[in-house]
């Protein structure tokens, strides 16, 4: 070993030590940064906060940590070391909840939805960019065609998901979310009769099963055609019906009473007239605030009987004491070009409900807390309260202002959408007075 090699070995060694130390340090720094990101407190300050569960808070602060809301208060300073989002002059509200959406965020829905979710679905990204942070998603379309049992259509393939763009881990909240029926309109009376018959059979099956359990014997076999009806009667989740008129609403309510399951009414139109029945049944309603409603004829006999313009119906159901969730005019995201007619403008549909007589507060509730309640996830989301998930929006204006855009969307406390960084609305300027 010559002196030359010896001289070269030491510096080389030192250099590699330094480099590896640097490398480890930077790795370590990255780790701590990651930890910071995860465990640090985040805060929004200076905003007009609409918690939904309480009154508006001006110059408000919202703080959260580990994905859960810590506090909502006026003029509160952000805690030490918190990551602050300045929202001076802006609005903050809970992420919107779409009570029914079709085909959004799903790559395949055969069998179940959880295994077929697509966190990079463009429609999901667009829905998130417009404030929707949670939705109940059904395979498209859920009207007609599951052929589960002869002429009756229905199923349970439904899931509540969060729109955690790019992140499969946070997406599925629960599945199945609801059972649903969509009865073919042809021979509708017969179909309701058949439905009743099926429920009878399901009830008999449940009785037999309970008996077997008591005797510690094996449970009787459940035929696949009866599975859905047994599931409805077991009532571990509600069941959506789509009655076309008040007569059918009566049928559905009587079925739910007789067989003891929780129903949800999808587009019950003028059932607000049956306020007493609805209140007694405590059944949530999903209502559109827009037409065209081809039944709604301003000069026909139905109109004279008190049929109401579609825009007024959501408010009418509120007055009747129902828990109202707003449905968008179309339940998916469309890129065809018609603006303001789908999930991307859910807040505008809520604004139309205000046009029809609802208060601003109720309208905002109808796209946040009420759908969360209907979906039975209101313990976790739907309003800005301590302990609930940090699913919230920073908006350029009041959420019911048609000009407002979502500037930032947080889900489980993590920033999933930033208008400035996203391509989606880059060509659309922010307009309007605040």
């Amino acid at each position: 070993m010559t002196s030359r090699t010896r001289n070269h070995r030491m510096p080389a060694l030192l250099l590699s030590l330094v480099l590896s130390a640097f490398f480890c340090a930077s790795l370590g720094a990255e780790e701590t940064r990651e930890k910071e990101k995860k465990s640090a407190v985040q805060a929004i300050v200076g905003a007009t906060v609409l918690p939904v569960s309480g009154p508006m808070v001006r110059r408000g602060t919202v703080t959260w940590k580990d994905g859960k809301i810590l506090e909502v208060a006026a003029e509160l300073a952000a805690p030490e070391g918190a990551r602050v989002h300045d929202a001076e002059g802006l609005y903050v509200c809970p992420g919107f909840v779409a009570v029914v959406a079709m085909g959004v965020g799903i790559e395949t829905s055969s069998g179940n939805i959880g295994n077929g979710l697509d966190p990079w679905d463009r429609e999901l990204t667009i829905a998130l960019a417009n404030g929707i942070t949670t939705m109940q998603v059904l395979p498209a379309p859920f009207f007609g065609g599951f052929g589960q049992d002869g002429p009756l259509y229905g199923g349970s393939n439904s899931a509540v998901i969060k729109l955690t763009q790019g992140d499969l881990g946070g997406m599925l909240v629960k599945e199945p979310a609801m059972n649903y029926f969509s009865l073919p309109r042809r021979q509708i009376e017969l179909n309701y009769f058949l439905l009743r018959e099926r429920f009878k059979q399901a009830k008999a099956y449940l009785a037999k099963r309970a008996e077997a359990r008591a005797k510690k014997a094996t449970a009787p076999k459940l035929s696949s055609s009866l599975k859905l009806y047994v599931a409805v009667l077991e009532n571990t989740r509600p069941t959506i019906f789509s009655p076309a008129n008040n007569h059918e609403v009566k049928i559905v309510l009587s079925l739910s009473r007789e067989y003891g399951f929780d129903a949800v009414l999808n587009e019950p139109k003028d059932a607000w007239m049956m306020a007493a029945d609805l209140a007694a049944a405590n059944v949530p309603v999903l209502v559109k605030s827009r037409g065209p409603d081809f039944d709604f004829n301003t000069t026909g006999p139905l109109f004279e009987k008190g049929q109401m313009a579609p825009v007024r119906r959501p408010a009418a159901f509120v007055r009747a004491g129902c828990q109202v969730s707003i449905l968008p005019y179309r339940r998916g995201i469309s890129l065809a070009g018609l603006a303001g007619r789908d999930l991307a403008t859910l807040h505008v549909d809520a604004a139309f409900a205000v046009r029809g007589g609802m208060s601003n507060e109720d309208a905002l509730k109808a796209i946040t807390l009420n759908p969360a309640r209907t979906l039975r996830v209101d313990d976790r989301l739907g309003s800005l309260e301590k302990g609930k998930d940090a699913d919230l929006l920073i908006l350029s204006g009041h959420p019911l202002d048609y000009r407002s855009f979502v500037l930032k969307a947080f889900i489980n406390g993590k920033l999933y959408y930033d208008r400035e960084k996203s391509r989606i609305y880059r060509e659309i300027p922010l307009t309007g007075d605040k």
Partner: protein
Amino acid sequence: MRLKMYQDQDNRQRGRARIARLLLPALLAVLSPTAAAAGDVVAYRAGKIIRSAGEAAAPGVLIVRDGKIEDVLAAGAKTPEGAKVVELPGAVVLPGLVNPLSGISQVNFTSGPGRASQSNSSPTDGRKAVGLSSLNLKHEVYRRLGRTGYTTFAVVPNDTRGLIAGQASVIRPALGKEKEPGELVLEKSAYLLLGFSSGKTWYDAGLRYLKKAVDDILKEKAAKKKAEEAARKKAEEAKKKASQPSTGEKKPAPVPPAAKPAAAKPPAKPKVPDPLVQVFKGEKKAFVRVKSPAALAHFFAFFDKLPIKFQFVLVTGPQPPEIVEMLIERRKQITAVILEPRMGRIPETSIYVNTARLFLRSGMPVAFVPLRDTIDGHREIFFQLAAMVKSGVLPHEALAGVTSVPADVVGLGAKVGSLKKGGLANFACYDRDPLSGAARLLSVYVEGRKVFEDDPSTGKLSGEAIR
């Protein structure tokens, strides 16, 4: 003394024999294929030899002995004694190309799409299927494989769309004299091809096959451990008994039983090892093909929950940057990526990205398969690679993607994919830099034998393999 008559006969016979001995080599040389006979050394002198992707092309002499590469000497070096010298003036000599995933030459083969971005259809279990068993030597395609520039193919069984698609066999092009498909095979089972997609049927199949394999391994381990524990305890107890004072009976001290594991039995008849179990035990390579971003998310969600994991080569289609990022984070699990040489489009936009370049910049090795899994598709590979180079893949990365990287991922990096000592003499000669687009494939050699020649001056039709 023999009669002179017979002596003359003898002499005549001896003379004939002598003539025959002289003539025979010449005869053989004329009649036999223009290949080096056993023991022969051939020295190929060319202006540009690329020994391995990443090395500069340099003039040199490629020494081939017995179908293997002995060395690559510098241009002016002395050729070995007795070597036949073949001049390849103006030729650019590359290692023969390697396709790590092809369905070519299968029994029901029809022209097919590129194998990298095929959709998985149904989650079936084809672990017993081996590429070798569906080779059909009567099929013309085996001889024509040689005229593509590719000299090594990893062929997978025909339906590659299941959850466990099958085992890939690595083959070479046919020289025409083979009687059994096995003669083409370099490696019978180089890797197991797996696939995954989104949806409940795939998830359930994943539980049924993958999770079950893991559970079986763990059960076996647990049983083994238990048996070892039991044996150890028995040995301990025996020891204790031996150390206790005798009770007075005139019994000889009991011999402690040999510490044999209780489960030890005479070896059962040899079972064919389950390739999936081998993958989990790290004894066999695995390729996993997953096409869409959602399917990738579901695969990793499933995979992360398995108690035993394995490293694998990922086969996938073009992906947008955020997906590439997600995959780069799994560098420890994903050892290389197989892609088609084409741009990916970010969905709902007209923005194209070069997925391969994104992977390569992050240090992930990339192997390419042709866009069309046909003879012509393979011949066109360099056009496609040139397009990759145009959008940011470095030339040596493009070349490595069809030589050294695919050779490594199928486990034959020592034999093919580069012109290194001891490797097979598989090489292809082009008339200029193959990435230039105008390059013409001049000849292809497989294990030292010329399987293709395209020389306009001899009037041979382009594309005919010669015998």
